[in-house]
């Protein structure tokens, strides 16, 4: 009888160990991350796609602090440069001249 009870206890213990092992093997990745030691948040954020998306955009200078007179002069200078670039294209029409860069501060 004692042997029988001993065998039953060992079987229940073995079954419990097997269930724990199965649960650990089939656990969701998020649950694994939660259970794992804390990962620095910065590493997780670096892999987020929107951050790369905004990072790819060209950084344009802010003009909000430029006096309006200076801004108008910059616009005028930009128009003159664009005018000259367009005239160069018309003198010798080709794709590279059409899209030639200028030194305008508004677009650089």
């Amino acid at each position, binding site marked *: 009888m004692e042997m029988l009870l001993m065998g039953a206890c060992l079987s229940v213990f073995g079954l419990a160990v097997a269930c724990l092992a199965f649960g650990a093997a089939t656990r969701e990745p998020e649950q694994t991350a939660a259970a794992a030691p804390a990962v620095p948040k910065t590493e997780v954020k670096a892999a987020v796609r929107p951050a790369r998306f905004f990072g790819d*955009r060209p950084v344009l200078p802010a003009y909000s602090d430029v006096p*309006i007179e200076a801004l108008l002069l910059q616009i005028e200078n930009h128009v003159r440069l*664009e*005018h000259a*670039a367009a005239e160069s294209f018309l003198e010798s029409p080709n794709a590279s001249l059409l899209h030639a860069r200028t030194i305008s501060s508004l677009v650089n």
Partner: protein
Amino acid sequence: MIHGDLLTGLPQEEAERVLALGKRTVLTSGAELFHLGDAADCIYLVVRGRLRLTLPMQVRGKEEDVLVEERSSGQTVGWSALIPPYRFTLTATAPLETEVMALPRSALNGYFGAHPDTGYAVSLNLSSVIGQRLQLFQAMWLREVQRMVELRCA
């Protein structure tokens, strides 16, 4: 006497007769020759000085006249006077003392009716002036579109 791009190719005497239809006007520095939307009754030849052609633009919530083009000695300004609906599509101001020859549409039409060869030659010159403006601004517009595509669709 400057005949300018409008009278190119005309014999000297004929160009003088066309110019005799007009009236010289001197603009002081800062004076406005015509304003956007005004009725366009005269076409102008710049005799000396310079004219700034501007369009209104919103800059920080305020309307500002922004330079679109400049015209100097020998160049034609205000061809809206010969093209319906005869309204100026830009504002012209003189940044320095400037002299222009104002040629009224009514006088030109009358003269060209009596001298069709002259009318034809002037029409060709006017087409050239308008065509150059069109090509120039077409190229400028495409450059802006290219920049917009690079900025928004890269």
